[in-house]
């Protein structure tokens, strides 16, 4: 089959609109001796991306990741970072400067945590009474108490933690991992996102966007309730061979079309998505169905309790996906449910009740299956909260404002240390003062566990070698690694 290469309208206009100017510029530069050596033609036009497993830069510790993302900003001094000094100063003026985000409701009064902390596990990690289940597995986790990202609002916090920089439009962490490593399964999406029955978190699709990475690496959103993926069954008359015939013909046409539009990443992604869709018909149904999980496993996560049922189910699904070779799973909350500007004393325990048992069960279950060594579990949001009161209108209305200058999150498995606390905030919990971990340091460390050098995992874009850590001076935090 011989067809002339088509020239698209866009190419024609580009060449004719800019072409003459370019020639003129080149001759001017040459005259002034400024013309660089000709760039080797980029192979972009022939680039074809796929999700087959890729060899990392060096031997990896981690193969998969489950991120339990807690949008809103979980309050570190009520959950992970005990501050006796804050309790001592409760109700008194904060002795220092505070970086507020919401000035309208700002107060300078210290807000000592209403909850008790106790030493837990062999390691003696201090954890709040709001997290009784996490308390039982602290010997498996690394708790980072000195996270920072620098801009105290949700969007920037999310972009930093999920995209590597505080600006919008960048690829999510899951996209980088699947871009760098491919997938261990060709029957399920490499990057899956489990959404909450209450809806998506704020900033919605930005949680799982591929940004400017090829469309193939975007997260696939799974519905929060059955059927979790729609349309898995073909019409009865076309099931089996007739459908295979349909897809084969479609692929033939699409490949032919792609050969005339080389390097068009959306067209490639669309072809791959049909191939995956065909395989998912049985694989996804099986993976997303937890009905055959043993009763003791369901009970461990809390499927039997209406309060924990949703999160427990999604954590079990996350584990099942990783077992079947999915590279990156993110379990999302709704809205920004951890954003307690007010009524913290009643709202925060509710969040914990719904998520503590399933999150802890995920660690125990992965460990018991021998998967924790190669699976990173991450629990955290886009920021933390301030040590002072917000909304000083009665105890039941008290809340805390945003804080990205020092907050906590935990990670487990995949080569992270066990029973280890990293970093410290000041005596009141406002700012990281010892062993600060910037969001990009965390990303560099995480990529190292996956066998990837953060400075080498790059994507060519507008002449730049773009990366997750993006030349911000990221350093691998070796103390976090076992």
């Amino acid at each position, binding site marked *: 089959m011989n067809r002339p290469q088509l020239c698209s309208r866009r190419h024609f206009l580009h060449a004719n609109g800019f072409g003459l100017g370019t020639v003129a510029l080149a001759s001017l530069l040459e005259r002034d001796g400024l013309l660089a050596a000709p760039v080797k033609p980029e192979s972009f036009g022939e680039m074809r991306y796929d999700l087959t497993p890729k060899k990392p830069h060096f031997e990896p510790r981690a193969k998969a990741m489950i991120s339990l993302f807690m949008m809103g900003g979980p309050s570190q001094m009520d959950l992970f970072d005990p501050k006796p000094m804050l309790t001592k100063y409760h109700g008194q003026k904060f002795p220092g400067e505070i970086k507020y985000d919401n000035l309208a409701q700002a107060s300078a009064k210290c807000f000592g945590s209403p909850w008790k902390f106790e030493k837990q596990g062999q390691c003696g990690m201090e954890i709040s009474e709001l997290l009784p289940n996490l308390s039982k597995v602290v010997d498996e986790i690394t708790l980072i108490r000195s996270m920072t990202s620098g801009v105290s609002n949700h969007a920037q916090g999310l972009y930093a933690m999920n995209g590597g920089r505080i600006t919008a439009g960048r690829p999510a962490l899951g996209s980088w991992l699947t871009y760098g490593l491919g997938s261990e399964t060709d029957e399920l999406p490499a990057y899956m996102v489990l959404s909450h029955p209450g809806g998506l978190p704020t900033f919605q699709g930005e949680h799982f966007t591929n940004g400017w990475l090829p469309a193939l690496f*975007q997260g696939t959103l799974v519905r929060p309730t059955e059927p979790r993926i729609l349309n898995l069954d073909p019409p009865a008359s076309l099931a089996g061979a007739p459908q295979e015939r349909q897809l084969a013909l479609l692929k033939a046409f699409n490949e032919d079309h792609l050969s005339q539009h080389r390097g068009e990443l959306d067209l490639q992604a669309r072809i791959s998505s049909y191939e995956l869709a065909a395989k998912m018909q049985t694989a996804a149904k099986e993976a997303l169905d937890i009905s055959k999980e043993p009763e003791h496993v369901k009970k461990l996560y809390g499927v039997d309790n209406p309060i924990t049922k949703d999160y427990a189910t999604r954590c079990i699904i996350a584990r099942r996906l990783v077992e079947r070779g999915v590279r990156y799973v993110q379990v999302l909350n709704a809205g920004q449910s951890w954003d307690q500007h007010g009524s913290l004393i009643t709202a925060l325990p509710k969040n914990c009740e719904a998520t503590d048992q399933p999150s802890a069960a995920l660690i125990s279950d992965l460990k018991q299956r021998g998967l924790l060594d190669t699976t990173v579990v991450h629990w955290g949001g886009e920021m933390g909260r301030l040590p002072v009161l917000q909304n000083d209108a009665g105890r039941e209305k008290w809340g805390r404002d945003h804080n990205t200058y020092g907050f906590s999150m935990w990670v487990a498995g995949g080569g992270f240390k066990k029973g280890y606390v990293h970093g410290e905030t000041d005596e009141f919990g406002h700012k990281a003062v010892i062993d600060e971990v910037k969001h990009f340091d965390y990303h560099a460390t995480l990529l190292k566990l996956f066998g990837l050098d953060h400075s080498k995992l790059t994507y060519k874009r507008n002449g730049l070698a773009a990366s997750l850590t993006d030349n911000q001076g990221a350093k691998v935090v070796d103390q976090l690694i076992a």
Partner: protein
Amino acid sequence: MRSQTTVAPQSLFTAHERHLRARQLQRRLADRVTAEAPNDRAKQLQRVWSLLYSKPATDMSDITKCLSYLDEQTKALTQYHHDIQHAKGVVPNPPQEAMASLCQILCSSNRFLYVE
């Protein structure tokens, strides 16, 4: 967000969703081209090409592929309808169903979905 995504559930949607309005249109497209040129599959296919892609099918291998698809699919659908019990009054039409399933493919193809 929807306009920017290319994930597998979208492909499942275009391939499997039964209540899609597009499905009706694909059937009507099949009916239309069949009525315009009864018993001439090649002519029907040329008409589909001009209606969907606004140009004739110049590559004859495309037409050959479609013709053999229609043959095989008609056989498979005839067998399917032979094997199942139909509700009273339902008269299956396998050649027409095959043509509709072909129209579905062409409507799901990148050539149709992406404007150059």
